[in-house]
């Protein structure tokens, strides 16, 4: 379980997050909605340990992971998979190397096997030796998803993973994402401002506006 309590973050004199409390239980699905600039990405970054909150705490499996102004547990030790808004693939690594990066602590053979499974699940196994710049936008998103799920994280954060894709591709990838989520018992925190994506992912729906969190009515 990953949870945060009374999180406050500000920038340039403006409150981005204020008193945000959220818990993501194992296997739970939460869809975080809200308008652009509402602080959705900031909240994900705080939970992932990429940003220290100015107020409040973050706990991972009951252990304090972030307190005000400090990250106590680094992101790589929080068992998190993260799909960023842009694919954020490392351009100097092949698709296979991108996915293998997060499997470094496994024996070589097992890591290779996991990499193949993740690529197959995202239907990009044929692209393993390509560089990211040789892939289309949709293929890059698939690889980003494969990279996130390959280490089998307990929490999967998806930050508007289908943004700026055309509607056909979006529909196809949404099917893939929901299929991958359904196949795993991973807890999912899915950020979007698209109603159809929220409906497809399912689970609890939360709404973030003006830096404050509430249930959507």
């Amino acid at each position, binding site marked *: 379980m990953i949870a945060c309590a009374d999180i406050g973050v500000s920038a340039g004199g403006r409150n981005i997050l204020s008193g945000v409390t959220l818990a993501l239980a194992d296997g739970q699905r939460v869809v975080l909605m809200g308008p652009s600039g509402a602080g959705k990405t900031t909240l994900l*970054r705080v939970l*992932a*340990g*990429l*940003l220290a909150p100015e107020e409040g705490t973050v706990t991972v499996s009951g252990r304090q992971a972030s307190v005000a102004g400090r*990250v106590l547990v*680094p*992101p*790589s030790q929080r068992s*998190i*998979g*993260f799909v*960023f*808004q*842009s694919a*954020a*693939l*490392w*351009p*100097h*690594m092949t698709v296979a190397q991108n996915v293998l*990066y*997060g499997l*470094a602590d496994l024996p070589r053979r097992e890591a290779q096997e996991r990499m193949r499974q993740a690529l197959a699940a995202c239907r990009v196994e044929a692209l393993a030796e390509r560089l990211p710049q040789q892939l289309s936008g949709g293929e890059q998103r698939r690889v980003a998803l494969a*990279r996130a799920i390959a*280490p089998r994280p307990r929490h999967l954060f998806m930050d508007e993973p289908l943004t700026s894709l055309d509607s056909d591709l979006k529909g196809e990838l949404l099917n893939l994402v929901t299929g991958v989520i359904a196949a795993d018992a991973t807890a999912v925190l899915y950020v979007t401002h698209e109603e159809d994506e929220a409906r497809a992912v399912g689970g609890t729906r939360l709404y973030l506006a003006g830096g404050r969190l509430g249930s959507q009515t």
Partner: protein
Amino acid sequence: MAALAGDAWAAVRMSPGSLRLAVPAGRSLTLLVRSCTLSAATALLCLAIGTAAALVLLAVPTRLRWLRMAVIVPVIVPPYLHAVAWMRTAEGLRVLLRRAGLALPPFQGFGAALWVQVMVYAPLMASVALAAWSMVDPLLVDAGLVQGSSHRVLRRVILPLMLPVLAAGTLLVFVLCMGDLSVPSLFSVNTYALEMYARFSASGRTADVTLLAVPVVLLCLAALTPAMRSLATVLSTPSAREGAVASAWRAAGAVRAGALFGAVVLGVDAAGLCGSLLAGAQGATWAAVLDALPQASVSLRTAGGACLVSLVLALAAGPLVAAGNRSARWTAAFLLVPLALPGPLAGTGASLAGVLAGGLWKTVAPSLLLAFRFGPFACLMTGARLARLDSATTEAGRLFERRRGDYVRRIWLPTLGPVLLAALLLVAILGIGEVSGTLLVMQPGQQPLALAIYNYLHYGGSGTVSALCLVLLAGLLALMVPALFLWNRGWRRA
């Protein structure tokens, strides 16, 4: 260049045996190996120290951002000023240790020259590393952090992404060291660049210098060619992009210790530079400083002339560089040549052209020489800025132009102007500090400040030298501050 080539060709036709000068052997081979060793060692040490220091500077909080500038400003300080500062510091240390009964060897030779050269170019490498970092997408770093430790992210993500720019910076430092004679000469290290200057001074035969320079020019061209694209990217990067601080990555453990060491070395250099010059200048009188005003005036006049020529060059070559086609590649390749030419060879060429053309040329030769050596930077910066101009903006400017000249006056100039001015200030900064080439072309009684300091240094340091160094430093700083301001302003309008 044409004068040098023609002269060398004539010499070879008259005496084909002189071609042997272009093939290093015996003494010249020893000097070439020494120059390469000194330059390569300097470049690699600068890479390590500069990159390490940049890792610390990246992490400084916003309120301490001025620290970055304080550490990087020595980039504009000419090598011989660093040499003066370190000579004084080493002498002070020797006196202190002698009192404690310990003897320190004299601060001379290869080791001393290497140390000072590293201090000269490490701030440049730190700037390059900061520029390289600012080009790394913070999201790629964060993506690495989610799945790997800070060390792993540095090794597998950050350094590989910074590598092209870091390599370009290292190669540039190598080339700059190969062409500089000031530091090696002050520490009694015979190098290839010094040999070229000595040969010209002794014989006056320009063809010999040209032929002698062939291996160095080829080496420098070979080093600069792969670095060209990255060099243009570095030059086209604003010095204070904010994206760089967005990533959560921080150095940890041994990396943090190494980074701190690098930052301390740069800090010591900056503090030592100012401290030793200030302490040394206490023995100087205002009269001595005022006596240097004519020399300062020559410096400003020469640099001003170089700026004017560079402006014409930048306006002519900038659009060609920006075109992004074959002509852009050829223009960029052509601009590489002056950068690859050692200072003494460029000076010899200007001097030879003066002999051939005579009259007015001798008066303008120093400015033309500086424009030849540093104008390519202005061309590359202008080209890089033009290449990033939003085509929609420029097309809209032309479309809505109601009065002739409005587009140039109200769109083109305000967009390009700050970067162009910053580029010209850079030419002025480099030109005012230059000695390797101007040493050979300045007319008697027309000595610039840098040359006066350099000449004084050979007669031993004094309070006057320190005071003159401070005057030069203040002048360079006065040019650098508006240059940085304009550079960033120019890019904010991008």
